[in-house]
């Protein structure tokens, strides 16, 4: 029997992933000889820009219809690249400060980014699962990379256990879906489910997948890992985790639920409405009681996942666009806030910020900007993001959900503005607020501030 070799797959749509993966592997070797971290970080940043440059040229479907690079995934990949570049910028100085962090840090960041890109481009559930695991395994290692620090260990083990647990749920859902449709291709599943009537096994599969992705985006009641992980992981990793994997989770939710589960849209909409309301309630109310700023930002990111889910359940073209805009703006403001936490020598507790404006007025003003943006006060970008999302939801008919979200946004002002109040109205607890300013960190803060201001004043730039 003669085996005909299959044609070589068209690699053009895969070029962005190829760049990230090959750079990650080269860096793995390079770190042995090159001790200059600036050089390695520079390569990572260049990779990010190269990918953004290639994205538009590489649209298409390849690998027997397993991989798709369309406008939807391009937009998400831009978010991942912004997240990668900003994370590398804020890590550069921080890693040298936290001595036990090993050199594999940057290539793991790139591997995690490649996993997120594969998730956004998966046209087949198998690629989706493997991309998710590629991202998850790299981030477990990143969360525990300070091996001598107990908090980092604990963060890693919690993240790992609950991540693996949720993957098992995802697999159970996928196996049911495979049994019903005899395929793993998302678009073919959609086609075949159109002819099938709504059945209980389909609902079971949908619920399992909802549970799995709620874990990944840290939506309540499956959020309990995220505060501990965000507190324990190194701060630069926390900044990455609070944005990248969350955006990747939403990218996958969009693809799987809008396309594969199109036929049972009322069912998954109900599930997500419940999850969204619980998430907003728990995220915003529990955040009020936090004393550690990383935990507070963790609960705030849970709450933001709740707002974004409103856009998902509205499921119109306009709301999907608003979701992507929201994630983009959220990337800038959240990484910016974490950059300030990294900038301060002691900045993990909220009381460390007491009287910051007296010693460091500029740092306090920038933190004020990010806090305002996270609340959604004009003229910051956070306001534009929330405004767009809620308007699109009202157009889609989810008025009650928007009312609830606005109420909880008002609640959220309390804990964000408490940081501002501490900075401006309380007396400092320390003689001098030490800061570690380095060119890269300063540049990252500069970019985030400019983006938060510019997108707030000229929203037409991205909409």
């Amino acid at each position, binding site marked *: 029997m003669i085996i005909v070799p299959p044609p070589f797959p068209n690699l053009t749509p895969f070029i962005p992933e190829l760049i990230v993966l090959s750079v990650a592997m080269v860096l793995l070797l390079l770190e042995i000889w090159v001790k200059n971290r600036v050089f390695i970080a520079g390569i990572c940043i260049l990779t990010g820009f190269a990918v953004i440059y290639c994205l538009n040229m590489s649209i298409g479907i390849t690998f027997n219809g397993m991989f798709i690079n369309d406008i939807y995934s391009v937009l998400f990949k831009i978010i991942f690249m912004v997240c990668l570049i900003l994370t590398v910028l804020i890590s550069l100085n921080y890693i040298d400060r936290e001595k036990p962090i090993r050199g594999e840090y940057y290539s793991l960041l790139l591997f995690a980014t490649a996993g997120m890109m594969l998730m956004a481009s998966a046209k087949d559930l198998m690629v989706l699962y493997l991309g998710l695991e590629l991202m998850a395994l790299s981030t477990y290692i990143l969360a525990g990379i300070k*091996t001598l620090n107990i908090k980092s260990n604990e963060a890693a083990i919690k993240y790992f256990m609950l991540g*693996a647990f949720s993957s098992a749920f995802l697999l159970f859902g996928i196996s049911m879906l495979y049994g019903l449709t005899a395929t793993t291709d998302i678009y073919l599943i959609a086609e075949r489910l159109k002819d099938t009537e709504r059945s209980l096994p389909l609902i079971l599969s949908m619920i399992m997948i909802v549970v799995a992705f709620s874990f990944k985006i840290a939506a309540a009641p499956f959020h309990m890992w995220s505060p501990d992980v965000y507190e324990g992981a190194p701060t630069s990793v926390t900044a990455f985790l609070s944005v990248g994997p969350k955006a990747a989770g939403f990218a996958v939710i969009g693809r799987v639920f809008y396309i594969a589960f199109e036929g049972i849209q009322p069912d998954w909409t109900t599930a997500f409405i419940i999850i969204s309301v619980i998430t907003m309630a728990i995220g915003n109310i529990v955040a009020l009681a936090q004393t550690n700023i990383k935990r507070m930002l963790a609960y705030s990111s849970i709450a933001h996942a709740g707002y974004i889910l409103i856009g998902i359940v509205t499921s119109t073209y306009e709301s999907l666009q608003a979701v992507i805009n929201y994630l983009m703006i959220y990337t800038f403001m959240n990484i910016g806030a974490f950059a300030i936490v990294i900038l301060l020598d002691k900045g993990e507790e909220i009381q460390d910020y007491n009287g910051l404006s007296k010693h460091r007025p500029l740092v306090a003003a920038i933190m004020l900007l990010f806090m305002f943006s996270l609340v959604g006060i004009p003229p910051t970008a956070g306001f534009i993001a929330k405004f767009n999302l809620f308007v699109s939801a009202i157009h889609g008919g989810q008025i009650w959900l928007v009312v609830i979200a606005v109420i909880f946004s008002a609640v959220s002002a309390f804990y964000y503005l408490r940081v501002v109040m501490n900075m401006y109205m309380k007396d400092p607890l320390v003689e001098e607020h030490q800061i570690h300013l380095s060119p890269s960190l300063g540049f990252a803060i500069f970019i985030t501030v400019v983006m938060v201001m510019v997108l707030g004043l000229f929203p037409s730039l991205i909409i």
Partner: protein
Amino acid sequence: MVPLNWYLYLSSVIFVIGVVGFLIRRNLIIMFMSIELMLNAVNISLIAFSHYIQDLKGQIMVFFIITVAAAEAAIGLAILVALFRNKNSINTDDIAIMKG
């Protein structure tokens, strides 16, 4: 011929035993083994589907799940070893120093 549903019942019962084991045990290694139990339950149902709907994709999927499970075991146990070095325990309530 054994009906397909028997395999699916078996798979979901083992899956739920894995879930319960994960939720109630305090020992991290047993919790991790419960996750392996859940993955194996999924594998049983995938292979049963693959046989009954006469399609090999299910078996390929199992192949990848086993690969990922091996990678997961290596990383999970490495995290456990790192944790044990600092903490001398692998019980869930001994390691929890963060709360809220």
